[in-house]
């Protein structure tokens, strides 16, 4: 393989809309070596079949303290195990935890794609994660204007 194969990408998104939106950008990292992280076994199974290596982490949200701790621990373990250069996250809470851990403990590059579902303001995950990202993209022009360093480039769907 060429030198391009050296770059290793972690692609993470909760199953459902987040994952669907992020995977629609799969061409972006086609030339690199990627592994995937998602939340449900069934969602991840489809990725496993079509894309490559994957990990499952516990699905969580802002109101689940214990689950969030589990998810954070799982993300930490994945980053210890996998040599990673860039984390591309499509949200929600697990993607946010991975972004924070990736930046704070592992100094990784972080790309955040906020879901098109957030029309008035960025998701809570996005608003937290954006302080740890290198690139932060949202899908509504008016939303992007509200935050520093958040870009609008169009929508993925």
């Amino acid at each position, binding site marked *: 393989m060429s030198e391009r194969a050296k770059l290793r990408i972690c692609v993470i998104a909760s199953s459902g809309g987040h994952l669907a939106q992020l995977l629609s950008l799969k061409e972006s990292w086609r030339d690199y070596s990627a592994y995937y992280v998602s939340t449900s076994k*069934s969602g991840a199974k489809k990725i496993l079949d079509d894309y490559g290596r994957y990990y499952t982490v516990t699905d969580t949200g802002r109101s689940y303290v214990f689950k969030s701790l589990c998810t954070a621990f799982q993300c930490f373990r994945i980053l210890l195990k996998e040599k990673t250069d860039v984390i591309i996250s499509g949200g929600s809470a697990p993607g946010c935890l991975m972004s924070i851990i990736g930046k704070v403990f592992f100094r990784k590059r972080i790309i955040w794609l906020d879901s098109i579902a957030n029309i008035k303001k960025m998701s809570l995950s996005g608003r937290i994660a954006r302080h740890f990202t290198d690139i932060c993209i949202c899908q509504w022009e008016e939303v992007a204007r509200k935050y520093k360093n958040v870009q609008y480039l169009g929508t993925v769907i």
Partner: protein
Amino acid sequence: MIFLTVGTLYPFDRLVEVVDQAVEKGYVRDEIFGQIGNTMNKPRNFPYVDSLEMDAYERHIREASAIISHAGMGTITTALRYKKPLLVMPREKKYGEIVNDHQIHTAEAFAKSGHVQVARTLADFAAKIVELKFFVPTQRRCNREAIVTFIKQYLGTVEKCKC
């Protein structure tokens, strides 16, 4: 067949109940199949499962004549991809159905552009469910290419730093 789906993270009793009533009162004569997650009140008038594998979920969308769901992006995008008429009821924070009211905004924005039908109340739902199968959703135009190019360029610069 009309496919009802409410996602899997939170229950959605209000929507399941409304659909159940619509069947009972005869507003809906089509067969209905539901994916109701951990909703407490189980429907009496149509068959359902708690959750579906992603493949089965997509097959149900593909085979449905119309879809009823919460205003989740997964369902909205999948329904649009298969050009299916979709009636959404947004989850609302005041009923404890979700953590914030972003689904109301999503539903309104996508209804405004003709992609989905939206119902917020029982009365509204009853009126719209009758006409749902005649609803032809507007297809979306996106600019995914711009985002792909941007990320590609960024990864290219990261790669250069690394070499």
